């Protein structure tokens, strides 16, 4: 029987920690204050309080997770039960008042509007917390003794998580390279310097630092001068660790045609 009581503790701990991490990273990446406006219960508080509200929630989750993991004190058990019960109510309220807002349970991944599955999940978690109230051991000890009941809990939660589909969609329909934020300029420059094309033509350049650099679509261009004062331009593809590099030399007077076009492609 004790196995039954403690079986859900590790799941609760993992979920609380995941929730904390996701919320903190959402607040940190969402530099635009209003970007949180479509996320979770935070929409129910005024605009400037949304970031702090998410962080407060994250801190609460972290404390509960630590408590469940390391102690058997009932305050954490009851706290978890209260947290998930309250969450269920808040989500119901959110669904009623702001049908467009996501639950924000796992940060910006949970931006789909709150549905019955999200609510069902918090209700299930509340049930798990209630089951764990009188578990005799800490979460840590329970985690060292996995059981079928734990696996069943995980499967039930996965089935109730709309975020899984969202993540699969994101992998399947990744924004094309042209629309993604590219790697930093220094990273691309380092990749250029690892390329064969660079090694072959390095000595022609007056300086190893480009005098101009810009990004267009999926390419980043670096412009250098060679000893004849012609422009040497390298184009580096932005995706991939060993990207394609192309190079061309354009004389200073020239402004239209392609004088010395060298199709150096995909140098490895």
């Amino acid at each position: 029987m004790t196995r039954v009581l403690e079986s859900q503790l590790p799941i609760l701990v993992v979920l609380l920690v995941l929730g904390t991490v996701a919320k903190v990273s959402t607040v940190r990446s969402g530099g635009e204050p209003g970007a949180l406006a479509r996320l979770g219960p935070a929409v129910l508080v005024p605009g400037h309080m949304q970031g702090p509200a998410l962080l407060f929630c994250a801190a609460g989750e972290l404390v509960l997770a630590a408590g469940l993991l390391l102690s058997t004190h009932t305050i954490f058990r009851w706290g978890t039960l209260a947290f998930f019960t309250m969450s269920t109510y808040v989500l119901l309220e959110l669904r009623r008042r702001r049908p467009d807002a996501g639950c924000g349970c796992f940060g910006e991944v949970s931006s789909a509007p709150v549905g019955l599955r999200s609510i069902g999940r918090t209700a299930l978690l509340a049930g798990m917390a209630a089951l764990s109230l009188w578990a005799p051991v800490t979460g840590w000890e329970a985690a060292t003794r996995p059981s079928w009941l734990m696996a069943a809990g995980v499967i039930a939660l996965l089935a109730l998580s709309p975020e899984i589909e969202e993540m699969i969609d994101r992998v399947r329909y990744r924004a094309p390279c042209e629309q993604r934020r590219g790697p930093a300029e220094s990273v691309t420059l380092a990749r250029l310097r690892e390329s064969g094309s660079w090694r072959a033509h390095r000595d022609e350049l007056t300086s190893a630092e480009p005098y101009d650099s810009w990004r267009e679509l999926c390419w980043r261009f670096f412009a250098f001068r060679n000893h004849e004062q012609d422009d040497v331009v390298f184009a580096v593809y932005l995706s991939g660790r060993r990207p394609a590099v192309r190079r061309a030399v354009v004389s200073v007077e020239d402004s239209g045609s392609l004088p010395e076009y060298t199709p150096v492609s995909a140098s490895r």
Partner: protein
Amino acid sequence: MGYPSVERRRVLAAAALGRESGIPGPDPGDGEPINAVAGEILDVSPHLIIIETPDGTEERLVIAPWAKAWHGGDTPPADLPVGSMVMMRTLRDGRVVERIWADTTRITGAILSISGRKDLTVELDCGPHRGHRSVVIPYRATGRLQVRHPKFEPGYLFDAIGIRRDGAGLALLPATSQPPYPARAVPDPPPAYAGLQPRISGTATWSDTFDEEERGAAYPMLERVDTGCPDVGASCAGLPYLALGSLLQIRNVCSNRSANVPVVACGCMAGRFCDRCVECDTSPRGRIAELSPFSYVELGGDLVKGCFNAQIGLG
């Protein structure tokens, strides 16, 4: 890093990738070209207008019988005051005037403060490189503007067309329906499925913050490090990244004209507007380019309407 040769980027990029570097200017296959002419009125009569262009030369242009003028409202061309700055749409190599906009200005930005009881004074943040601007809304225009700006409070966007009078901007007409979100909460673009569309549709607007007689566009999707513009890179139209100096091929869907226009500025403010243009049909959401008045007029746009439905491709 400065921009020693932003125009040269186009040539260098074309050479590196082995493609043709496009030529800025209108597409020759568009029928009779429209020329934009700007200047200060020296004299005007029902059939002739004499202006001084920014480079100091005097030009005499014939006013077409069907020509219309706008100076805070539709007026006959002959009633335009001498000394006002005009922007004109002309035919026949810039000899025949078809449309005149006098002292027309556009005020686009995020509202910082609103003061005044009858005539309202609105302080706007027009983006990091355009600074703050203050505009007066005369009492008779407040109702018309507020009905299209339901969130008339600090933090929300504002876009209006008006006239310059004694150095101050007077907002008279709403240029768009105000987006319902705060200026900094730009919605994400719709998810992109299976690669980039070759042409992207949206709305093209104009702005008077370009240099005189400059033909160019401000584009919202530039890399922040390349431009030194901290606010650029937000747009709800799913735009690809380009650079200052890239050539945009812009097509006015309403008038069926297209032109190659270089990107000359970052369109931080244009990217924040997730609105539609209903000039000839309902465009998809999002401003894809903010044109200089010259480019805008030569593409067949009407300054008072404020936008046209546009498609862009890479020139």
